[in-house]
C-alpha cells in the first residue's frame, strides 16, 4: 500500500488541503464534483510510479472557499497559480468530470504548464447530443447512483466516500455540491467559450476517456472535446458497458491506458 497523507499548504493566498501519496514524478489529480472519493485501487496503482498531488477544491469543506473563484475558468487559474507556487514545473494532469473541465480550462490558458493531460468524462462543453445531468436538481443519492452503469458489478462503488452515509459525509457532500453550484450553476455545467479556446491548445498530448453509457456527461461531449482539441494530439477512448466512472468500472483497462499514456 502506497503511503499517502493529507496536509494543508498555504498557497495562492489560501490554506489548501492536499493529499500527497506515492513515489516518482508528480501527477496532478483534479477530483470530481463530489470531492475526493478516497484512495481507490487506481490511486494505488498509479502511486507506484508517480507522486499523486490531489488538491481538495476550495470550498469543499477541508479547503476554505475562495470567494474570488466565481467560475470554473477561474478555478483553473487558481490551480495554475498553485502549481507555479509549488514549483512543480511542467506536470502531467488527470482530471475527473468537473476536475477534467478544470484541467481543460488550465490548458487553454497555458498549454505549456502540462506535459500530458488525461480527461476522464469531463463536463464543460454543452452536449451536442443528450444533456449533461443536472446534478443540482437531483438528490445526492440519485447523483451518485447515476455515475456508474452497474452498481452491483462495481465493487469499488461501495468503498467511495468511506462507504457510509454519516452526517459528516452528508455535510461534505453538501459542501461539495454547494461549491460546484456556486461556480457551475449557470450555464449548466459548461462554458460556452471553452471549445473556441481549446483550439488554441498546442503540443499537449491528451487522452480523453469515456464510458459509452455515461448517464452524467453524455459521450457526445467526449467527441466535442476531441474535435475542439484539433490543434494538438488528442485521442478519445470509449469503454463499452461503462458509465461515468471508468476508473472504477473498468479499473484494469483504465489503469493500463493511463499508465501507458503517461510514460
Amino acid at each position: 500500500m502506497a503511503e499517502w497523507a493529507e496536509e494543508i499548504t498555504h498557497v495562492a493566498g489560501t490554506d489548501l488541503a492536499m493529499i500527497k501519496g506515492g513515489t516518482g514524478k508528480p501527477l496532478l489529480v483534479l477530483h470530481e464534483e463530489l470531492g475526493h472519493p478516497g484512495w481507490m485501487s487506481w490511486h494505488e496503482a498509479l502511486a507506484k510510479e508517480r507522486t499523486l498531488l490531489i488538491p481538495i477544491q476550495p470550498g469543499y469543506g477541508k479547503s476554505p472557499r475562495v470567494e474570488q473563484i466565481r467560475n470554473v475558468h477561474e478555478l483553473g487559474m487558481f490551480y495554475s497559480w498553485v502549481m507555479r507556487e509549488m514549483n512543480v514545473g511542467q506536470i502531467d494532469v488527470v482530471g475527473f468530470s468537473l476536475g477534467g473541465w478544470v484541467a481543460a480550462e488550465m490548458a487553454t490558458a497555458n498549454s505549456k504548464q502540462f506535459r500530458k493531460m488525461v480527461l476522464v468524462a469531463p463536463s464543460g462543453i454543452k452536449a451536442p447530443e443528450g444533456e449533461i445531468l443536472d446534478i443540482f436538481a437531483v438528490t445526492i443519492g440519485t447523483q451518485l447512483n447515476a455515475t456508474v452503469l452497474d452498481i452491483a458489478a462495481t465493487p469499488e462503488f461501495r468503498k467511495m466516500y468511506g462507504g457510509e452515509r454519516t452526517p459528516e459525509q452528508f455535510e461534505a457532500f453538501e459542501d461539495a455540491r454547494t461549491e460546484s453550484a456556486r461556480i457551475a450553476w449557470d450555464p449548466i455545467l459548461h462554458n460556452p467559450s471553452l471549445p473556441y479556446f481549446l483550439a488554441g491548445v498546442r503540443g499537449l498530448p491528451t487522452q480523453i476517456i469515456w464510458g459509452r453509457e455515461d448517464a452524467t456527461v453524455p459521450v457526445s461531449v467526449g467527441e466535442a472535446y476531441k474535435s475542439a482539441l484539433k490543434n494538438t494530439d488528442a485521442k478519445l477512448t470509449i469503454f463499452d458497458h461503462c458509465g461515468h466512472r471508468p476508473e472504477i468500472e473498468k479499473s484494469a483497462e483504465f489503469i493500463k491506458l493511463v499508465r501507458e499514456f503517461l510514460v
Partner: protein
Amino acid sequence: MNLMYFTERPYRDVPEDEVIKNRGFFGVPNRFFDREKGSQLYNEYLDEMVYSEDVGFDSIMLNEHHGTPFCMGAVMNVEASILARITKRARIVLLGNPLPTFKNPLRIAEELATIDCISHGRLVPGWVRGAGSEQIFNQANPAYNRERFNEAHDLILAAWTRPGPFRWEGKHFNYRYVNPWVLPYQKPHPPIMIPGVLSPETVVWCAEHRYPYLGLGTALSATAELWNIYGDTAAKLGYVAGSENFGYLQHVVVAETEEKAEELGRAHLFGGGQGAFSRPEHTLPPGYNSREATRRLARTMTAGSGGFLGVSAEQLGRSNEPKEPTNLQQVADSTRRRMARGEATVDEARAAIYKSYPKAVEGLQIIAGTPKSVIPKIRKILEVLRPGTFGVFQSQGPVSFEDRMTSIRLLGQEVLPAVREIGKELGIVDGFERIPGSRPFTAGTKRDQLVSLDALRA
C-alpha cells in the same frame, strides 16, 4: 390587530393523481393547465379578495411561486397592481417577492413603487429567499441565495430613498444609472413585512432591520422559540419588540355546519397539501441553506416542525425513516418515499394523506369549523403567539367558489369581530398602530413577554 385574508390561488383542477405520482406539486407537467379554468380562477380570486375587503379584512396578502399548480401567483405584482385599483381600503401585503431569483431587482423597485402610487400608499412589500424550487425554476444560483437576497434588498431600499441618479456596483448587481422616476407613495418607504418558515438567520435579519416577521403556519412551539430570539436580538439592538413585530398565517376555513367545514378542511390536504409542495431535490438545491443550517439539518432528524415548505428527514436523502409517522409532514414524507420505491400505489398514498387529517386538526395545522368552533382555536393561537398581524389562509384543493365566498362571509360576520375583541383583551397591537422598533429598550430592564408557552400547554 391587522386581520389579513390570503388565498394561495391554486389551480384547483389539476388531477390529484398527477400530483401524487409526481410526489409534489412543483414539476407537474403544464399540459394539465387549461386556459379556460385558469382564466376563471384568476378572476374568482380577485373577486374573493375584493369581497374579503368588503366583509372587514384589513389586509389582503399575496404570495409568489413558480411552475406549480399549488399557486398561480407566479407574477404576484401583476395581481397586486389590479388590487391597487379595484380595492379601496385594504393594505396589499406581498409575502413576498423572491428577491434572489430576480436578474433585475431595480425593476422590482419600480413595480412596487407603481403599485404603492396607484393604491395611494396601501402597499406592504415583503421579501423572501424563495423556496428551493423557485431557484430551480428561475435559474437562480442557490449558493448565492442569501447574498442576492441581501443585495437586492439593499438596492431596492436605496433606489427608493437615495436621491438619484447614482451608480450601484455590487457583487451581484451592477447599475450605471439608478434613478427610478416613480417613487413609493409612502415615505420614506412602504412598511415592510417578512414571512418565514423558521430560519433563525431570517429572524435575526428581521430583528436587525426592525421588520415584522410573519410565521407561515409554522409549529407553535418552534415559532415561539424563534420569536424569543427576535426579542432578544431587538433588546441587544436597543429596542423593545412587541406584537407589532410579529404576524402569523393560519389555515382557517369556516362553513355553516361542521360537516361541511370538515369537507373543506380536508381539501387542504389535496395532493399531500403543504408537505407535497416540492420534492426534496427541489426543496433544497445545493447551497440554498447556510452551512450552519445544513449542519443542523444533518443532525436533526425530526420531521414536521418546518411548517409550510418545511424540511424533513426525507430531504436529507437518508434512509432511516420513522417507523410510525406521527404528523402530517411525516405521513407525506413516508408515503412519498414508498411511492418512489414503487412500494405504494397512488390510492394508498392518497389514503395515507387524508388519514392524517385528524392529527392536522388536533395540532391546529388546520382550523375548520363553524364560527362558533373556530373562534376558541384562533384564541389559543393569539394567546400563545400574540401576533399583531393574523392571516387567514383560505382552503386549498377542489373547493368551490361558492364555498370559499361563504367562508369569507362567515369570517366577516362572526369571526373577525370576535378576533378583534380577543386581540383587544390580550393587548395585541399591530405594526401599523405602533411602528415596529419604535420603542427604546432600557438596559437592565426586562423585555416584553412575546409568547406564552403556558397557553400552549393549557
